[in-house]
């Protein structure tokens, strides 16, 4: 009896490798290898085209004393938290969109879908115009109610908020798609039963829908956090390197980009990349550990 489980595991091993083999092969070649290279580079001084010189922990020491790093980390965290707030909102919206009998559901779905389909550069341009403090739509709308709007993307305080809002806006469609998948997987019979039991829609939502959605929500919190930490393109497109608010608003990946391609200090940039990996890795790990508490896989 005791030998059976081990035999089953070993047999599973063979099958498992067959299933994950092709994927992992590609991942190792195209992704792991570069990460290992980056790890190695973080211990070197790396010229623009090669020519490495081992410097040990020097880059990491610099990391600890660089004033930009804690600021960038904080900015990245703030941005990520704000975008994460989009998840509860998306749950609500997805539930609405998937209500049975909702007319024109497909039309609404397309509307929410648009932001993630569009070309990022064009989107950024439009948002820049919206945020323009003298001629933009936002401040114009505010002026109608007597509020004098600030420089949204050029003041250090507001810039991060402005970028985060766009991040939130553009990620709602993504979350809704994921959640819709989860919602459709919930058998309608469960709702029937709940109705028969006398549960109203609100009750059904919180006791039935949400718990069954927790696997999808968990997925979203993981992915959104990871993506949040990768903030760069949006920041670059909305603010631009020339912006007075950039120094206080830059994210970790922006810092990385600047070191890698503007300053050509690829060794130091690699150390920053490792830092990013470490921080979001820990956050993800913690999330996985905690999932038992709130995620119900059936």
């Amino acid at each position, binding site marked *: 009896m005791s030998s059976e489980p081990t035999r089953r595991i070993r047999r599973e091993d063979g*099958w*498992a490798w*067959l*299933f*994950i083999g092709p*994927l992992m092969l*590609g*991942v190792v070649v*195209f*992704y*792991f*290898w*570069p*990460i290992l*290279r*980056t790890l190695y580079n973080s211990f070197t001084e790396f010229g623009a085209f090669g020519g490495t010189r081992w410097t040990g922990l020097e880059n990491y020491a610099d990391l600890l004393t660089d004033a930009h790093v804690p600021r960038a980390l904080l900015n990245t965290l703030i941005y990520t938290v704000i975008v994460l707030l989009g998840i509860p909102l998306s749950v*609500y*919206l997805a539930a609405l969109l998937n*209500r049975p*009998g*909702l007319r024109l559901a*497909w039309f609404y779905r397309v*509307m*929410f*879908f*648009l932001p*993630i*389909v*569009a*070309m*990022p550069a*064009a*989107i950024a*341009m*439009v948002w820049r115009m919206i945020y323009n403090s*003298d*001629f933009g739509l936002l401040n114009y709308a505010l002026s109608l109610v007597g509020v004098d709007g600030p420089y949204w993307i050029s003041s250090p305080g507001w810039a991060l908020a402005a970028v985060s809002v766009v991040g939130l806006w553009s990620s709602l*469609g993504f979350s809704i*798609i*994921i959640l819709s*998948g989860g919602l*459709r*997987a919930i*058998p*309608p019979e469960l*709702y*029937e039963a709940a109705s028969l039991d006398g549960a109203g*829609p609100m009750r*059904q939502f919180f006791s039935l829908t949400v718990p069954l959605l927790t*696997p*999808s929500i968990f997925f979203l919190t993981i*992915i959104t956090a*990871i*993506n949040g930490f*990768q903030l*760069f393109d949006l920041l670059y497109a909305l603010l631009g390197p020339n912006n007075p608010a950039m120094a206080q608003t830059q994210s970790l990946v922006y810092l*990385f*980009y600047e070191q890698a391609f503007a300053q050509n200090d690829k060794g130091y940039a690699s150390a920053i990349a490792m830092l990013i990996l470490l921080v979001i*890795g820990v956050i993800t790990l913690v999330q996985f550990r905690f999932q038992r508490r709130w995620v119900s*896989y059936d």
Partner: protein
Amino acid sequence: MTDAPAPRPRAARGPRNIDAYVVLTVGGLVMIFPFVWQLIMSLSTQAEVTGVPPSLLPASPQWGNFAAVFDLLPFVDQFLVSVGVTALRVIVQMILCAMAGYAFARMQFRGRGILFALLLSILMVPNQIYLIPQYSIIQGMGLLNTVLGIAMPGLFSAFGTFLLRQHFVALPAELEEAARLDGANPWQIFWRVMLPLSGPALASVAILTTIASWNDLLWPLVVSTYEDRMPLAVGLATLQGQHMTNYPVMMAASLLAMAPILILFLVLQRRVVEGLAHSGMKG
């Protein structure tokens, strides 16, 4: 089981759904108004767009901007490249990620946790670090400037695997156990039992991968040199000049590039929803 078409239990009595319509309409408008503006810009002249302040509405619609896109870019060629790259990525990912996702979810094997953690970790680093190593590999394989070369790194997706893994984890174990007792091997279980239940998840992966691939800019930019062999996203980016950009034409190009995806989404999402309504869910 009674032939219950489209769940009726939470019967949609008219007034009940008003809150939904209100919220969704407001939300929807917030979502789309940048595109409305984009459309307005694409029909304006450069002077109107770069005016300080920019004009709200064009004096007369400049439909010529859309035609100009085809003059400035080999649109059809680039479109086909985008289609090729995207199709490759979606198809290969669906296969590889489903298999791996299932294994990570349902199979016990040594090192499962570590491998999964390592897999996720590739999403956690700035993707610029992949640029040079991937370039060297693709170059070494002689695949620069080819659809396969552009698509290749994207064939292997941690994101898709994670999504499908979550999906498989959520499926009830009883189905599997029943099949196992029947003597099915893992492949048969996967192919005959698990996969058919994965429609929505696979559709999600397909849609999201399509979007990501369609708008993918940096990697294809680096890997393609010839104008007629680069994907649409790269072609659009080249419309930006050093000192000036023809914004109306760029907006028009962006809308044209978006259109195929929108249409695809319209078609896909209705089919998936309808397909599920008839499938009766998890038996």
